[in-house]
């Protein structure tokens, strides 16, 4: 479980995953495969964002596509109107959306359970409607082509848009996001949010301020999702209202459940499995969503822990034999 993680092991895992990504980027030569991998990785970041909210707050959002789409739209609008340089636009979009998530977090996380799902659904659809209707600002249903400049952060754009570079860029984004979130969750903050998730009232009684941690988890979740949106805007140089539709949020949620949300890498795995197996089914691709719909139902009914839960159980036997390290014991004491 995540609580056994120390910062050292997280850093080791991140380094290993970065190296593995480099091997993939260097050995895979097919442009199509790399582009598919990039797309899968970007959605893995999206799913990670949705998964954090479920894992740490126990909340299901049907509106996260708004954060995903906003990433693209903010950059697109800033660049199309030549309001600032592309570098500044990326930074502005990232922190702007984080601030936005923080502010609406104060309002939405107060609403519990199913009502939260409905509220985020309404919020997401609101953005979808605004994006499809206000032609002047967002280009309406046609979307916006994003005019990326010739150089970005001093690097030539043709270098950055090479498929292998793009994949490695997205992969690093995913691995670092998981690493940072894992470190946060292994800290006191992670323990606090878990306590609130399991019993908000009890956490309040023992003197924990419960609103702010939940808002921060929501912010983190929205920001990670926005990062996926920014990467997608860079990969496709295009953004359209479709990226904000509630079914996109639903699809991301589906990846989270199939991958299993008990582990941070579960949602990411779910997204990658989603894209890879869609490619594998080939001729049945038009029935793809139905196949995944059935898979979703089967996972929920028979294996609620998802793929990551099943994998972890396979390796659990080995982990169970190993005695708890002093660091873990120390951390557990700190929490109780």
């Amino acid at each position: 479980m995540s609580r056994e993680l120390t910062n050292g092991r997280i850093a080791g895992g991140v380094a290993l995953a970065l190296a593995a990504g480099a091997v993939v980027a260097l050995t895979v030569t097919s442009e199509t495969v790399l582009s598919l991998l990039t797309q899968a990785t970007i959605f893995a970041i999206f799913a990670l964002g949705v998964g954090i909210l479920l894992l740490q707050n126990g909340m299901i959002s049907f509106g996260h596509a708004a954060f995903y789409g906003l990433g693209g739209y903010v950059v697109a609008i800033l660049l199309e109107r030549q309001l600032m340089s592309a570098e500044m636009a990326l930074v502005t979009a990232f922190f702007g959306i984080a601030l936005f998530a923080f502010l609406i977090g104060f309002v939405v996380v107060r609403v519990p359970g199913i009502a939260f799902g409905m509220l985020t659904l309404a919020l997401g659809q609101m953005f979808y409607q605004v994006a499809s209707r206000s032609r002047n600002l967002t280009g309406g249903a046609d979307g916006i082509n994003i005019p990326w400049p010739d150089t970005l952060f001093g690097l030539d754009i043709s270098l950055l848009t090479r498929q292998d570079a793009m994949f490695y860029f997205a992969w690093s984004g995913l691995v670092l996001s998981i690493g940072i979130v894992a470190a946060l969750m292994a800290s006191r903050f992670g323990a606090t949010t878990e306590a609130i998730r399991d019993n908000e009232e009890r956490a309040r009684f023992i003197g924990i301020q419960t609103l702010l941690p939940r808002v921060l988890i929501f912010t983190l979740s929205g920001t990670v999702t926005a990062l996926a949106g920014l990467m997608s805007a860079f990969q496709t140089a295009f953004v359209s209202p479709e990226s904000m539709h509630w079914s996109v949020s639903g699809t991301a949620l589906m990846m989270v459940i199939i991958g299993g949300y008990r582990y941070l890498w579960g949602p990411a795995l779910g997204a990658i499995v989603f894209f890879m197996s869609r490619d594998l089914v080939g001729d049945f691709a038009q029935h793809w969503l139905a196949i995944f719909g059935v898979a979703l139902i089967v996972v929920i009914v028979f294996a609620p822990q998802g793929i990551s839960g099943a994998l972890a159980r396979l390796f659990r036997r080995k982990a169970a034999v190993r005695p708890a390290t002093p660091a873990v014991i120390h951390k557990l004491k700190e929490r109780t």
Partner: protein
Amino acid sequence: MLSINIFNGLVYGALLVVMSSGLALIYGLRRVVNFAHGSLYMLGAYLGYTVASHTNFWVAQVAVPLLMGLLGLALDRFAFRPLQDRDPLTVILVTFGLLLVLEDLVQTVWGKSNLSVPAPDLLSASVDLFGMSVPAYRIAVIFFGLVVAGALTLWLRYSKMGLFVRAASTEPTITSMQGVNVDRLSGLVVAVGTALAGLAGIIAAPFLSLSPSMSSDVIIDSFVVVVTGGLGSLSGAFAAALLLGQVQAVGAVYLPEFATVLPYVLMMAVLLWRPAGFAGNRV
């Protein structure tokens, strides 16, 4: 301009009454927020297309709800009942999976092109109403909405079974202790709810065209209705459906840019102000 919009708002409101009363009933007894309800509506419309093209509209209007009712029984028996002790959030996701399967089914069987069902001969003319010329069929839609609302109200208020349904929606455990078979009752209510989704589909078929995307708009509007009216509350859903119809219709006149956003603003306001909706959550 305004009066015709109010009229059309009433027509759409009546359709939403049929749609969302099914959603509210299913939530009331099974505590399931049914994402597949819009797809059931779409399936009803397409089934109606097939039945109506072989026979006529009126046969479809009886046959489709019956078929959909059977589907509802199966849905409850094989999905909602086995999952009743699970976290409601995971059951929502099961209905989302179901939605994907149904959408694919409809596209595979009927294709992606737009289809239409002609209004029955009896209602194909235009009628003069307060100086406006309106299709007779649209007046009939309002009538259908009223009949459904009236029949459901009578059933729930004045029949013994209606009493059981109301009891089970508030206190399922105590109701079953009194000797009511709540599982069978819930199965029946889910069947009625599914039949109502199908009925809404066949009612909508002659005035909204059939397309694979017809479900996704109406399901969100129905959610707005049941959430605003109070999840599980029928009278709340009736009022909210009519309100939403008017908000969209009148909004389109006075706030054309903003009209499509209004329902969501309404829904968010209600959720933040009273998360249980206007009328609480009893049938």
